[in-house]
């Protein structure tokens, strides 16, 4: 067997190359620039510039796309409108994420520990803090994660998908571990996330191997052709398919593969949580969408029980457990599990409408999620000496926020209403699209369960609104909570608010884009 060098068409890969190139450059800058303050500014500008240029390049590609798209490297990557749309979405989340990473409280603190390698509570840590160290590696790490996710949405080969999966997962494991406060919790979160992530990777890899064993193919298209031709379903094939899907459901955070979510969301530095919650879900949904609609579409009937069961379990468990949470980050984590269920509802009917519905759902969900966590970064405890301390994540501490900061409380209420799917917010359009896709496929029973779950979920969203607006600040606690005014985080809150309203009231332009993207270059459906 001779080794043939694959010809690679570089042009369609430009957006990813920009992001990954900037990430590599960022790592170099870490070594070159010594002054922490300068390094932080340079890294921030580099990240934002790279993400913006990449987004510009992706939009340009979208506008000038020749035909349906391009297949790169013998079918390992497919750049079509669907993948470009997801890339743009992830870049948008990346930009918001980078802004939150760079945000600093009025006391000049970032969300990250000054020296990740120091033992929590040790002398080293104190020295690092006193000397003004900055952990600026998070910027290149985030770029790697964004690059990996972009790749994840465009890959059309089971083995290459694993590479993309690891490229975006590994940086996230590190980013979860570097919280400035409550570092042990952060470490624990990272370890859990890592172990369960490795577990899910193994699931995925085993599934991919089984698929290869059953079909002798590793590309989506190759497997798809065999799947179509097999009259009776091969147990090897079916097991492989289920395991691959399970691997992706881990990343999506759906029940019963959700157990990392609350801990990781709570322990991670909140900017990382914001980015991770929005972008990981988007990437996972995109990859799942492509695999299902390219490869397993003809297995629809055999696989639909899996989607139904996981969707119902996620919605019910996410909603019920969120009701009893007392920590806002954990509550949002369980809400994200419920949303993973709603995402899967769109798959429930195996209708090709899901191809246009899911980008809409993930954008509406992601924007509100980033906004909500951006609000969380600004509600702070006040330390004994009167300066701004850590985040006030206990729900009780949010009482009376509407009086302290009408902007933040109003924004949070808007995001919560969007999660709940109230009309005139983005979340309603997302839910409407997802439910339409399911009903189009005849899964109206699933939708009925979904609407009941979303009615129940209103309980805990509204509970926070009650706390913020209808409850007075407890006696004697007037000084315990402080609202921070970091301009970058404020900017994220305002931008996401605007997006939530625009997508809720005049979503036509975005629905058009999603409809245009609803064709897969290689695929059975659509």
């Amino acid at each position, binding site marked *: 067997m001779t080794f043939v060098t694959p010809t690679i068409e570089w042009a369609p890969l430009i957006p990813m190359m920009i992001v990954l190139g900037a990430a590599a450059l960022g790592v170099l800058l870490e070594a070159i620039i010594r002054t922490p303050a300068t390094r932080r500014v340079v890294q921030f500008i580099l990240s934002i510039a790279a993400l913006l240029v990449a987004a510009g390049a992706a939009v340009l590609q979208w506008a000038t796309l020749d035909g349906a798209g391009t297949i790169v490297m013998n079918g390992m990557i497919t750049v079509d409108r669907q993948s470009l749309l997801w890339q743009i979405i992830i870049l948008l989340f990346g930009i918001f994420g980078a802004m939150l990473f760079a945000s600093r409280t009025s006391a000049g603190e970032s969300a990250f520990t000054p020296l990740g390698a120091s033992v929590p509570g040790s002398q080293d840590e104190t020295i690092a803090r006193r000397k003004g160290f900055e952990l600026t590696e998070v910027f290149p790490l985030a770029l790697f994660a964004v690059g990996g996710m972009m790749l994840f949405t465009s890959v059309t080969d089971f083995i290459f998908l694993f590479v993309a999966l690891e490229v975006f997962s590994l940086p996230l494991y590190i980013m979860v571990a570097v919280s400035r406060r409550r570092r042990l919790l952060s470490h624990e979160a990272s370890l859990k996330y890592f172990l369960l992530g490795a577990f899910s990777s193994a699931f995925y890899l085993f599934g991919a191997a089984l698929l290869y064993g059953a079909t002798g193919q590793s590309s989506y298209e190759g497997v798809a052709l065999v799947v179509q031709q097999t009259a009776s379903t091969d147990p090897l094939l079916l097991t492989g398919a289920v395991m691959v899907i399970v691997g992706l459901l881990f990343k999506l955070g759906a029940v019963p593969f959700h157990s990392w979510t609350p801990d990781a969301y709570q322990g991670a530095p909140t900017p990382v949580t914001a980015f991770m919650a929005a972008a990981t879900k988007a990437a996972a949904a995109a990859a799942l969408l492509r695999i299902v609609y390219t490869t397993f579409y003809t297995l629809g009937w055999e696989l639909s029980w899996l989607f139904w069961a996981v969707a119902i379990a996620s919605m019910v468990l996410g909603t019920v457990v969120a009701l009893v949470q007392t920590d806002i980050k954990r509550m949002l984590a369980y809400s994200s599990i419920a949303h993973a269920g709603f995402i899967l509802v769109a798959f429930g009917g195996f209708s090709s409408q899901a191809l246009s519905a899911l980008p809409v759902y993930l954008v509406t969900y992601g924007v509100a999620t980033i906004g909500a966590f951006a609000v969380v970064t600004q509600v702070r405890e006040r330390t004994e000496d009167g300066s701004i301390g850590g985040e006030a994540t206990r729900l009780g501490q949010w009482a009376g926020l509407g009086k302290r900061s009408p902007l933040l409380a109003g924004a949070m209420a808007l995001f919560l209403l969007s999660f709940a799917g109230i009309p005139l917010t983005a979340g309603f359009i997302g839910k409407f*699209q997802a439910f339409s896709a399911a009903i189009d496929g005849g899964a*109206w029973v699933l939708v009925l369960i979904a609407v009941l779950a979303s009615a129940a979920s209103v309980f805990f969203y509204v509970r926070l609104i009650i706390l913020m*607006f209808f409850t007075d600040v407890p006696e004697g606690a007037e000084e315990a909570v402080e609202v921070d005014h970091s301009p970058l985080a404020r900017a994220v809150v305002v931008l996401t608010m605007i997006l939530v309203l625009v997508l809720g009231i005049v979503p036509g332009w975005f629905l058009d884009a999603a409809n245009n993207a609803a064709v897969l270059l290689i695929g059975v459906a659509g």
Partner: protein
Amino acid sequence: MFPFLTVLIALPAVGAAVLWALPTQARGRVREIAIGFTAVELILAAVMFLQFDRDAAGTFQFAETHSWIPQIGTSWALGVNGIGLSMVILAVILTPLAILAGWREDRDVKKRTNYLALILLSQAFMVGIFVARDVFLFYVMFEAMLIPLYFLIGMFGGLQRRYAAVKFLIFSLVGGLIMLVGVIALYFQGPGGPQGFLTDNLTGIDFSTTTERLIFLAFFLAFAIKAPMFPVHTWLPDVAETARVGTTALLVAVLDKIGTFGMLTLCLVLFPDAARWAAPVIIVFAVISVLYGALLAIGQENMLRLVSFTSISHFGIMVLGIFAFQQTSIEGASLYMFNHGLSTGALFFVVGFLIARRGSANISDFGGLQKVVPVLAGTFLIIGMSALALPGLSPFISEIMVLVGAWGAVPVAVAFATVGVVLAAVYILWMYQRVFTGPTAKGLKKTRELTLRERLVAWPLIGLMLILGFFPAIAINYLREPAQDIVSIVSVEEAGS
């Protein structure tokens, strides 16, 4: 042509934005500004009323159709027929009165601004619902309206307000979201396309029997919760007891009409076969509502709860009229929707006046007020008489039309419902007796007489009820044709009679 309907929706919303945008120092006159907006709205609606072509009351007039989100088939499609017009008029009359009735409620300017802005915002959605000609738009308004209302109940009012607000929200959302499933399913049954949600395009679809029934139920449940019908009425007394009187008056007098309005204009028109199929059961529930509401009203100690139970009883009569599928009964039900708004709105307002004087809504805290404040007592009595359908006041004629009209179709149900009408005399007169007659209760000797502002709230409503009581034809002329259209759609097969 002047886009009346869009302006009628936009104006209160703009008013709300203006109030919120005012700097704190400039908020001294928020009440006047809010009243100003509602007054302009009232004038606009009056002009529209005069331009409305009464001879074509069955068609949608002042129609506007603009593309909104063509990708999902929805348009900004507005229009009013006679029924919609009557509801819009009701909304624009009662909103300024509600503001006037609560003129002295807030000392805190910030709180006052929030309250008024939320009232204006709800008005925008109320008008929007009654003029929407697109099912998606209707749904959006229907759900979005919950948010200002939720804040109105939860931020202002009595001790139990948070509980009441959440109960209201959850009840409404469960109904609303189930309706959403119906809305989506309906779209897939219809012709689809960029105008697939237009009511016109969804009328006369050839459903399979099961599909039609399921979608009908999804819609009907939402409307039954809103209209409060037994057994999904339990949120109303709690809300009425704790929310501000202005909020409750608007909620019961106008917003709850969305339930019956939706049954009339969507359930019957879009799903005629399913409506006929479900009618017997619905009529049973309607009659239960009539009797149950009336009986519980008699037993109430709190006046606000009492009035809300009378409404449950009255809504039962409307639903009975609607699902009897007779020309007269449907005309009567639509007329009752308007008259009940006047009567219950007024009743809540005067109860509010009493509460403002005593600081309590409990009947046992009152007594013998007749001698101290005869004008207030007289006003209360006339309004109370309208609620028990005294001839000469407008609710009488509508109630009679419903009962007489429905007699031909469902005589047994009518017989039971008539008992409810008799019970109305008991709860109203007994309440009057305990509050106004007998020895004057302690501390009530110096009760203030009805002030000018309060007269301005209550008397116009009494005037309207008297005019429509003696000349009901003024209103019926607007309702006859729409009722005819609905009857012709729903009784194609001659079933149900």
